[in-house]
């Protein structure tokens, strides 16, 4: 498995409690993820989500530039100041797992969100790194997802 680590922070105008509540509400958060094609809530803390991942136009096969991933998203831990999510499933025939940790702090009447993500890519997806810069690709996907959530919660 290839392990990649990313992190960042951003501000939201909504207060800490409201943001924490929203981030642990799967039914709401799924709608904020870009390119979701289908989802099913299995329980309050678990959902099956299919979304299209944009691997980028540098991928030499058109059909592999945008692939549909089939994942389970689970809220592992939720409190007033943080949420931990696990995303596991398959994309392009290969396994993926992303563990996302989000800390929410009060900031000027709004919230400051600090996030970190550990992504593990299966062997087959790892092969992609011979053809494209997989590190920047995953980082772009992470940023797109964060931007989607920011837009949704702003």
């Amino acid at each position, binding site marked *: 498995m290839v392990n990649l680590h990313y992190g960042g922070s951003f501000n939201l105008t909504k207060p800490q409690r409201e943001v924490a509540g929203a981030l642990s509400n799967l039914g709401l958060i799924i709608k904020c993820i870009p*390119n979701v094609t*289908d989802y099913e809530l299995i329980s309050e803390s678990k959902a099956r989500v299919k979304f*299209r991942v944009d691997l980028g*136009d*540098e*991928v*030499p*096969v*058109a*059909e*592999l*530039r*945008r*692939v*549909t991933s*089939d994942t389970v998203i689970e809220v592992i831990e939720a409190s007033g100041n943080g949420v931990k999510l696990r995303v596991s499933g*398959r994309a*392009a*025939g*290969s396994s993926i797992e992303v563990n996302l940790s989000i800390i929410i702090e009060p900031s000027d009447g709004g919230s400051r969100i600090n996030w970190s993500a550990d992504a593990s890519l299966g062997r*087959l*997806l790892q*092969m*992609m790194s*011979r*053809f494209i810069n997989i590190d920047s690709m995953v980082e772009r996907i992470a940023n797109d997802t964060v931007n989607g959530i920011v837009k949704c919660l702003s």
Partner: protein
Amino acid sequence: MVVKNPDVVVIGGGVNGLFATLDLSLRGFQVMLLERSVIGSGASGRMHGLLHSGARYVATDPKAAVECAEENRIIAGIAPHAVEDTGGYYVAVDKDDEEYVEQFIKGLRAVNINYREVNPEDALREEPNLNPEVKAVVEVPDKVVFAKDLMFSVAVSAYREGALIIQGAEVVGLNVSGDSINEVVVKDHVAGDVRRIRPRIIVVTAGPWTYRVVKMVNIDVDMMPTMGVMVVYNRRLTRRVINRMRMPSDGDILLPYASSSIVGTTAVIVDDPDNLTISDDDVNFLASEGSRMVPALRKVSVVRAYASVRPLIKMPGVNAREAARDFAIIKHEKPSNLVSVIGGKFTTGRLVGERLSDEVSGLLGSSKGSMTRDHPLFGANLYDDLRELDNPLRSLASDFKGSIDEERGRAAALTLLLSEVAKNSRRLMGWS
């Protein structure tokens, strides 16, 4: 005539290799095509059936879009018997699709592809099985190509121009002397012998298996095979090809293929192009995506699924930009008489053949140009011209004409012809 040492050996009997063989033969070269199994047994014979109008690539690869648009017209012109001019609809079925409409139409205009915006109500009258919630429809000149019919016609046409088409001939060695290949070693799977050929130029058109061939001359190729799955349904649900109006992705094409429908395709990374497994998830995914465009798909039966392999290849001499393009022709520095192709779509197979032949012609000191764009392929008047067949086979093939199975019999008649061509080619080589 026994031809031991042709000008050119083409390795791989898919659409690229066949058109290269025909093109070079029309330029007057003596060409031998070697196919380890049978013509069209690799990726070309397992394509999705779409003769691209180019519309699919207008946003991501305008050059490929232009090439597809031109080849779409050429193939329909030289092989009308292997093409059904169905036309195609691009359909927007959700908000994300709708957001792509403007970019799509701008792209179509930029590369000069004929299109027509269709009122959704009119589209539903034309295609009653379309999703009734369809929000926008654009018509483009997509067509359906009958892959084996086309490939067999190219093979027979090349043979008529003097090429030899050898099936069951696997290249197992390329012997180098100095800086060029002086001998091609072939395992003859029919006779069980090892054969040796001494061509002047070697062309590799082995698709996902190219890496194995060029490795014989120590050219390292980094390859990642990706599998595309297609699902066949038991009923033809549309008159036209139906495409999802969005950037190219997985599960966005539904084709009418004779009396069936085909939905494609996935993109799954695999280990070995000879070892493909189609999962229920692949089939279910395609059913789900296909039914977004044509809900009636849920009510018809899946007949079967099949898969082809597209290779991602990194090879010395090809930069990242070229590798991201549809196809690249590589004239290797060493061995100096080796030319390979990577990538390519079925739609652009003739163009690949032309470009390969330009390269080979240059190496052989010829200035003759390609003639394949105006060369009608054998098969358009199939039942009037079955002279290559021996009497009993000719009677068998000709009897399809006028029978209940005349249209369906074309593939059978072409198969008989190809079989005869392959047998005669072996005889001319002294291999039978």
